[in-house]
């Protein structure tokens, strides 16, 4: 039986604005490469089948389920993960709001929801409650019942808007 491991690919991934050389088996998903080869364990997994949304990251600003994306396909594209949300020690308004208002309970679905919400607010700075519900409908959360997540996103939207007015 043939058992040779597939030859690794070597390429540069641009994650959170930093370019990094990575070497990995070509079948690996973006999720696996982020977590296992780049030690970016902030991105989570709940199914590896594209069903729960826990692994959502942004690729060129668009939420992508990293468990369904081949890392190979992401070469040269801008990838954003939860690790890149804060600027230095300062939390992103979404992070601050989720922490303050109960948007994160166990915190496991949180990175995926934060990234999805970031994409939403960049597209629509002042989304309605209905738009928020639609945007995160692919992210399952078993803890919160979603209400405090909506409120966190709304609070972050207000903070960002106030910040940009200043």
């Amino acid at each position: 039986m043939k058992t040779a491991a597939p030859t690794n690919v070597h390429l540069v991934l641009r994650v959170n604005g930093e370019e990094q050389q990575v070497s990995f088996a070509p079948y690996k998903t973006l999720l696996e490469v982020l977590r296992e080869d780049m030690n970016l364990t902030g991105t989570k997994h709940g199914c590896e089948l594209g069903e729960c949304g826990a692994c959502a990251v942004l690729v060129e600003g668009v939420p992508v389920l990293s468990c369904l994306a081949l890392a190979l396909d992401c070469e040269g594209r801008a990838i954003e993960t939860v690790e890149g949300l804060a600027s230095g020690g300062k939390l992103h308004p979404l992070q601050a709001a989720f922490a303050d208002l109960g948007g994160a309970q166990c915190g496991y679905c949180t990175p995926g929801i934060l990234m999805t919400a970031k994409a939403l607010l960049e597209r629509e700075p002042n989304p309605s409650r209905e738009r928020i519900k639609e945007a995160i409908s692919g992210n399952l959360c078993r803890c919160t019942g979603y209400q405090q997540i909506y409120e966190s996103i709304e609070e972050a939207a207000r903070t960002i808007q106030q910040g940009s007015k200043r």
Partner: protein
Amino acid sequence: MTKRFDVIGKPRRRVDGRAKVTGLTRFADDVMLPRMLHCKLLRSAHPHATIESIDVSRAQARPGVHLVLTGKDFPVTFGILPVTQDEYPLAPERVRYVGEPVAAIIARDEQTAFEALDLIDVQYRPLKTISDPKEALATPEPRIHSYGEQGNIHRLQALEFGDVNEALARADHVFEDLFFYEGNTHLPIEQHASVAAVDGEGKLTLWSSTQVPHYIHRALANALQIPPAHVRVIACPNGGGFGGKCDLHNHEIVVSKAAILLGRPVKICLTREEVFYMHRGRHPVLMRMRTGVTKDGKITGMHTQTLLDGGAYGGYGAASTFYTGVLQTVTYEIPRYKFDACRTFTNKPPCGPKRGHGTPQPRFGQEVQLDRIAEKLEIDPAELRLSIVAKPNTLTANWLKIGTIGLAECIRKVVASSDWKNKFRKLPEGRGVGLACGAYLCGAGLPIYWNKMPQSGVQLLIDRSGQVTVFCGATEIGQGSDDVLAAIVAEVLGIDAYDVRCVTGDTGLTPVDLGSYSSRVTVMMGNAAIQAAERLRELIARAAAEHMETLPENVGFAQGRVFRADDPGKPMSFREAIVLAEEKFGTLGSVGSYSPPRAPGRYKGAGVGPSPAYSYTACVVEAEVDRNTGWITVPKVWIAHDIGRAVNPVSARGQVEGSVYMGLGEALMEEQVFRRLPPKLSNALVHKIPSLLEYKSLTSLDMPEVFTELVEDPDPNCPFGAKEVGQGPLLPVMPAVANAVYDAIGVRIDELPITPDKVLAALEKKAKGETPRVGPESFPDVPYPEPMLVPPPWEGGDGNSVNTPRRRPVKKEALA
């Protein structure tokens, strides 16, 4: 209590909030160690079979495979309860459900391990499979286990508190109803993961997604036959638990053994499908409830019978069996109560504790039946409940001690906020409201293994830097236990919660706490934390008093300052006070511990049900039912929870709303169900829907608005009066949905989940003039034993039984 609090009761960012939003919380699968290997389990595709042979030679020869383990490597059985040591880490000669692990591959990476699974050859000889309790009762042979009551009955219980038949005979009305509650599963978004490693001293460390590190520590040491002192279990913060991470799981033992044998770290992370098959979730329960009432709605007596589908192993099932009956009495005045329960083995993944552990099922039945009673007696369901709410500081018929009870206030609140009086039976056809209540433990009174030691311990260290570190075995599963711990210590010491460092859930470092289950953490850990913090404060006060030339009793602590209470204008900083105390007493530390009060019941079985306090909840659900599709939409839920006191109202509200969410899932869509493959395809009982896509749960688009109110009636047994909030608010949701559906379209769905097909079937019956009901039609003949007779407190009892019922034998023919 007039004292104002600085930390308790204030809405705050939880102390671990920042870690959770930055991706820094380290869950078990985030633990990556040098030289780490990866484990995969081969699981049985047969629901019931003997293993004729296992050949692992091809797998062993595969490059990259370091170790293959099978049942012969694990001679010792395990089980989370001392009374049910019925599982093997890897099944040696017999499998009892699809998904039971039979072999393990440890390889250089997950992919290699996964591929090597196919190289293991297992020969099975299929046995007759048992799919549900009725089949289990009718099929005493082959026995799934050689232990248990008889045949395929795992447990039988029968308890009678006063003569219930007599109580029903003198009732004006007796209601008898059958209900069925389908099983469902926890579905934490985090799949279970574990990493085991041997440290430099040759001792084992296990990082795991577990809610109960102490129990795992004990059981793991026993399963591996190594001294507990050489085992350290670290409960990583759980990505949701809900009861699904309370058992010692096969994979935890397997990776531990592999790490010991290989001298290298070994990790496993289950796939989502494996999590479904591992289960340990809500038992499917068939129920018969007989309740006698007077014409003005007072209950004269109640008889609850339950039949549980336990799945293939014991697990927590002995406790679950009791919980399908024992808490029926703490909500309303029930002068006489009888409870029969039976748990059967079936060839399905084992059931166990899920949020509410055994109590949501009978609660559903009780609250739907009360809705029927109210209608028959022409009393408003809210008024009926208000007139029978249990009284504070009383004993129940089954000798449970109720302390504070804020239920009446909860009912009044949801009646007002939901505009109940203008909606009930008044909304247009197709729309309706339903009301229900619930009650839950604030911690199980007894640990799962018999001992007289504390159930929670807290240790405090404090040094001249002003740093306060609190150690406790309690486990953060998302509910905010670290935040409760920090808040309580901070409140007592007069400092900021964020100045307290929490070290929790690590059996190598932290004092024993029994774990995050039975809603015990706030009360038990909280009381231990108060004791530890007060002891430390006493030392600091004595040192500061000397310096301030006053008495220790006159030293105040608040907002990071220590001051003379009679002259607060000249405070010293908390840190300055610590230095004084360290000068006077040497290195500073303290411990605190907590044991619940002894319960008054003395009969055998009285250990399940007692709690230091009970929480109460009332809920109104509004429902819209589409008569053409049977689809139920819930636009809004109003819920009020008697929490005693909210330690952090942000987290408390989150627990209530999360409970509503999970309750609506159980009411409307979630079900852990199995189907039998055709005989030519093995006849196996396989999970119908082992994926997150097909196992339906509410998404953000389905979740209604929830209006949450907290009723704060501080309970003297609880820290700062704080009761539980993690489980109780789930309980009334399911029956409130069922009652709302009845109000909307006049049909009774006595079976959960209430899916559109059942609604349509009931509407069809209604249209034909038949009884507009869908639910169980019969209750099988269960060989419940003679009941143990325990007179209730008001009938002269002392909490002991007055008979010694013969439990066995029941003749085998009775089962046929």
